């Protein structure tokens, strides 16, 4: 059932449709709405931090609230904004790029989203129940194990729930990409975005369980009296740091790799050229993914692991600059000699290259273990990781949203407003974070609530705050653009940019819910471009027109996630009052009961009949 049909039947039906949907395109919308909302919340928290640091000895917010702000800003932006926005892109694009009708496990896809959403809600409920987490997004023990109140408990339960959702999503995309590719779509013909999602999903699969275990240990220590991080009983606080970064370092590649893929697709589309060095790009992506697991301890140079361990991790970290450099040059060479069209998507992508390269350069500086003793826990580090995460991930999300918006919603975002949003954000970004490197080198530590007068930190902090306001203006223009375009822009073509090369541009915008009327036959890299060069309209089908098998909608994913949400509160508050154990049992009962129903009830999906599809083709909504 399409969204338009649902809306005709009333708002209730539309909501029910979204609560039960297993369609990857609608799940992409859900991820986008939720991730976008959390991005705005995280941005608001960032603004509050910058206002507090606008002038020396400022008293805009209290020290305790400041700790909550920095913790929630980091946690929200990483787990509740960047991850779901990336999942929105993955869901919207990957099945289309490989010529599939849905992901391998549509039910699990929906479950992954609802787990993420309930985990995110759980984290943010803490603002209203006596205080948010306040031990930093890294949540180091023993600061976290001794933090009073329930803030850190919310961190533990919220991330555990949303982390489970992410892991499920990762496995789903791995299987989708291995098993669901259209005939002829060999691995070395996959678009770079699909390739990067494939590598990213592998990273998710092997990185997230370490976080799961870390969070379990933290949960046991805080809620059930165990002694993992309690030095008094023989515990060891460094275990948390290792587990956190064994997850946390691959996590930064989980964030950036899909956007590397998106940039590759955008550069080649708007340069009207095939990607320069396709196989080198694939190799570099895989190599970055592999090395990403070997470098976690570079976050811990000052812990005291000794010179040998520090040296090994320093060298491994520097090695990552090589495949990343390959990518940067290949993007430049893709544009070289191309017929470049400077769309908003392209503008964000071009701006990404120098911005991210600066972040990569400071990354190599930080990788020098001896020098890191000087940089550690200063604003230099804050400047570095915002250059890679904002300059890479956020620029990438904006670029990718402009690029794929017509495919997701059937209309383009307004180009003029898109460029108008870009400039204040781009200028504001460099104003905010470039100066922070120098603040760090001058000795300003990160996470401090106030700084003192007369130490030469005033001007730098003021510039940084002004820059943050520019970024906020850019973001608001983008949000306005979304609303404006929904009302004013006209329907986009299937090949919305005219120079589409990959399969998603071979079908209407937005696609019918079964995506492809007939599974396409892939005859080379950039399959649509291959057909265009042969003078053909659209793809050659690989199967005759016939009935299409599709999965059934289900309310169970929502129920299962709700169960974990209820149980989460039970776990947090049973420390105060054992009566809360009822919530644990009720929540787990809902979860396990729903799993039982799912197991015993047959769900074979349904067929869309040939006649209906022919009807859609006549109406022009399918091709």
């Amino acid at each position, binding site marked *: 059932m399409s969204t338009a049909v649902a809306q005709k039947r009333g708002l209730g039906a539309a909501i029910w449709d979204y609560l039960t949907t297993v369609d990857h395109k609608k799940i992409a919308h859900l991820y986008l709405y939720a991730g976008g909302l959390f991005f705005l919340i995280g941005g608001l928290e960032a603004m509050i931090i910058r206002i507090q640091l606008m002038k020396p000895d400022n008293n805009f917010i209290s020290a305790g609230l400041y700790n909550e702000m920095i913790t929630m800003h980091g946690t929200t932006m990483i787990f509740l904004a960047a991850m779901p926005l990336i999942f929105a892109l993955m869901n919207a694009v990957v099945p289309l790029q490989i010529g599939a009708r849905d992901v*391998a496990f549509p039910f699990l896809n929906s479950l992954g989203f609802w787990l993420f959403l309930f985990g995110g809600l759980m984290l943010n409920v803490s603002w209203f129940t006596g205080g948010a987490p306040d031990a930093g997004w890294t949540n180091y023990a023993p600061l976290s194990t001794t933090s009073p109140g329930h803030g850190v408990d919310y961190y533990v339960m919220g991330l555990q729930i949303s982390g489970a959702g992410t892991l499920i999503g990762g496995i789903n995309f791995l299987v989708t990409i*291995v098993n669901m590719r259209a005939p002829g779509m060999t691995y070395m013909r996959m678009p770079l975005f699909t390739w990067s999602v494939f590598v990213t999903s592998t990273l998710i*699969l092997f990185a997230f369980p370490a976080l799961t275990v870390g969070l379990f240990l933290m949960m*046991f220590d805080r809620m059930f*009296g165990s*002694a993992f991080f309690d030095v008094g009983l*023989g515990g*060891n606080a460094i275990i948390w740091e290792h587990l956190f970064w064994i997850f946390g370092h691959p996590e930064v590649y989980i964030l950036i790799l899909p956007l590397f893929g998106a940039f590759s697709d955008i550069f080649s589309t708007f340069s009207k050229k095939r990607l320069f060095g396709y196989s080198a790009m694939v190799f570099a992506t895989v190599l970055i993914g592999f090395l990403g697991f070997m470098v976690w301890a570079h976050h811990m140079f000052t812990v005291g692991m000794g010179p040998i361990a520090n040296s090994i991790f320093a060298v491994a970290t520097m090695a990552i600059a090589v495949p990343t450099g390959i990518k940067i040059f290949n993007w430049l060479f893709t544009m070289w000699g191309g017929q470049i069209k400077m769309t908003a998507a392209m503008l964000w992508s071009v701006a990404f290259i120098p911005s991210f390269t600066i972040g990569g350069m400071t990354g190599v500086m930080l990788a020098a273990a001896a020098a890191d003793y000087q940089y550690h826990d200063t604003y230099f580090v804050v400047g570095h990781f915002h250059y890679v995460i904002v300059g890479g991930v956020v620029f990438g999300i904006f670029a990718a949203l402009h690029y794929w918006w017509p495919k997701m919603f059937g209309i383009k975002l307004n180009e003029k407003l898109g460029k108008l949003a870009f400039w204040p954000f781009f200028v504001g970004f460099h104003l905010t974070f470039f100066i922070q490197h120098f603040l760090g080198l001058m000795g300003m530590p990160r996470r401090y609530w106030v700084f003192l007068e007369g130490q030469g930190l005033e001007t730098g902090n003021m510039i940084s705050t002004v820059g943050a306001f520019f970024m906020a203006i850019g973001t608001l223009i983008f949000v306005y653009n979304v609303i404006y375009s929904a009302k004013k822009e006209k329907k986009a073509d299937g090949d919305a940019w005219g120079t589409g090369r990959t399969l998603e541009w071979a079908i209407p915008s937005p696609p019918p819910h079964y995506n492809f009327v007939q599974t396409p036959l892939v005859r080379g890299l950039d399959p649509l471009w291959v057909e265009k060069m042969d003078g053909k309209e659209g793809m050659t089908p690989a199967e005759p027109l016939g009935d299409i098998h599709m999965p059934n909608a289900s309310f169970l994913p929502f129920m299962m996630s709700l169960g974990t949400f209820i149980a989460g509160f039970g776990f947090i508050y049973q420390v105060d009052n054992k009566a809360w154990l009822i919530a644990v049992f009720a929540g787990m009962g809902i979860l396990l009961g729903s799993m039982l129903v799912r197991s015993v009830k047959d769900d*074979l999906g349904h067929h869309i009949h040939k006649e209906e599809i022919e009807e859609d083709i006549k109406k022009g909504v399918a091709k």
Partner: protein
Amino acid sequence: MSHEDVLNPTKLPHDPEKATLEGKNKFLAFWFFLGGETVLFASLFGTYLALNGSTQGENTPEHLFGLELVFIMTMLLLTSSLTSVYAMYHMKNHDFGKMQKWLGITVALGFAFLGFEIYEFYHYIHEYGFTFRSSAFGSAFYTLVGFHGGHVLFGLSWIVTLMIRNQKRGLNLYNAPKFYIASLYWHFIDVVWVFIFTVVYLMGKVG
């Protein structure tokens, strides 16, 4: 493939668990999932090894563990892995009755293992006062072995559910992948136990 072909196939293929796209997807996804589970247990083993000596001077591994009990438990679980192989052998020969019988034996052995484990924990707590909270070693021991025990319990509930659900209708292309991945899970649990036996009990007793 129509629903009728999936639920009531006229002739089952040799690998009924991989005959449909859904079956192939499940098969592959479950291997990936076990890869993730491997990292989960690796993290738990790492934590255990880091806290191995943190006993606060009492209830050391040499003092606590009795290899006789652990030997019986190991035999029970290893045998149950073998019987689940027999069950899958009969599944591939389309003999549903024999598959159910061998799965029944698997489940019985699994429950016996779980019973011994509960006895073991009870014994440590009541005879030695060795608990989850008494030292970092206690926390690490109960968490690692308890996570494994939790997996055993989940696996048993899963296999029993499948057996009851499909008792009347027999094997088809829809439930064959379910049986198959449940047996994969069971093997994985068995492999983890081999490591627990080595790292926790053997190294604790003689290492």
